[in-house]
């Protein structure tokens, strides 16, 4: 049981970290880039919201399976497949939650407007410097929202993790799947305990993050 909880938290935490790092440049480009095709990228990023998790899981399973051309590139490094592995699970979760990270970060970057970055440039801040010292701190609420949504969404994920993870005990079995299996085995007592714990945990995480966000909003960092 502890192992299942650990896998779930590790998956959600790692996914959140990776997505925050990914959403920062991607969200910035979508907010301020000038390429005409950027809305096409925005649509691709948002696809996981519309697609059933099974569709996404199915394609990921094929892409991460031993016969995929993508995996063929990794064969020289001794990696035959990422299907039914924790790494595969992380890749799937990152793609599945991508829109939940990119959208709030993009919105926050758009809300800043051009003026603060122009002011920073006249104060001799190079673009990279200004991005980290002005844009990111000004968009911090967007990042907090993204972190909350991604973490919660990953913990609550079921279809994608079942398809690419396969619920292998000790490696890719997460809480949501364990609950499903317990119910299938008519172990209602255990399912109850785990489900209630998940509700409590989710509430605490969200509550803590909202408190943190309010504190950050009421005074300058």
């Amino acid at each position, binding site marked *: 049981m502890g192992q299942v909880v650990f896998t779930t938290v590790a998956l959600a935490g790692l996914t959140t970290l990776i997505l925050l790092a990914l959403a920062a440049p991607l969200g910035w480009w979508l907010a301020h880039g000038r390429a005409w095709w950027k809305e096409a990228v925005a649509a691709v990023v948002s696809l996981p919201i519309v697609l059933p998790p099974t569709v996404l899981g199915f394609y990921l399973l094929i892409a991460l399976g031993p016969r995929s051309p993508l995996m063929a590139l990794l064969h020289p490094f001794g990696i035959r497949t990422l299907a039914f592995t924790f790494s595969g699970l992380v890749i799937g979760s990152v793609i599945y939650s991508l829109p939940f990270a990119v959208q709030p970060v993009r919105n926050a970057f758009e809300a800043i407007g051009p*003026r*603060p970055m*122009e*002011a*920073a*440039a*006249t*104060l*001799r*801040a*190079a*673009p990279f*410097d*200004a991005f980290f*010292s*002005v844009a990111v*701190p*000004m968009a*911090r609420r967007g990042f907090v929202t993204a972190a909350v949504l991604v973490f919660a969404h990953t913990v609550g994920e079921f279809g994608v993790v079942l398809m690419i993870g396969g619920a292998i005990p000790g490696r890719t079995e997460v809480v949501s799947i364990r609950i499903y299996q317990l119910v299938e085995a008519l172990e209602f007592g255990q399912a109850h305990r785990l489900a209630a714990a998940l509700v409590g945990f989710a509430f605490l995480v969200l509550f803590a993050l909202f408190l943190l966000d309010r504190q950050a909003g009421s005074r*300058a*960092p």
Partner: protein
Amino acid sequence: MSHVAFALSGRFGDFRLEAEAEVPASGVTAVMGPSGSGKTTLLRCLAGLARASGRVMAGEAVWQDGRTFVPTHRRGVGLVFQEPSLLPHLSVRRNLDFAARRAGRGPGPDFDEVVEMLGLGALLERDPDRLSGGERQRAAVARALLSRPVLLLMDEPLSSLDAAGKAEVLPYLEQLHRSLSLPVIYVSHDASEVARLADRVLRMEAGRLRGPAVVASDDPLALLSDAQVRTLARAALAAGLEAEA
């Protein structure tokens, strides 16, 4: 410090910028003209925030010509925007530090002197959203000075303020004018402001500006074009006639 010379032309939306002039190495050069005449666009081109074709030189340094376009952060231009532009996530002190840290050491007033000059001592720990309009513009001017600019651009820094705010900030600007030794370009459409602050005046109309600058006088009327004087006279006359009727 060095003089600044520019010859720029370009299309911006539906109007055309044609500007050519030299700005001496010290003193305030005002750019006057009705709103919409391209004054802000000219400043943005000098700062490197907008792009026209042509040439901009700051002393020996080429900021822009056919081959080079030095990005804003490497020009060393201070820019005071029309509306408040303090970084909202930083206190006044940290806004000033933002500029000072990146400017490094060099000639010109240091942190404490600039704070003193603009009367910011009591405001340093405040956040920008807890300042009055006048206080924000004073902090913005201080921040621009701390970036040790080779050229200071001011884009109607008083226009977003009410009468009290203008009266509060103007003396600080006059004081700076006496103590600074760097070229300042001051954009305004207010003749009385320009009469108090500027040494020379360039006029801009419908995107066109051509030097050399005219020496400013203390008489605001001297800054107006003949057409503007006629309009004013007519308005005064009409007002007088109405009062009699």
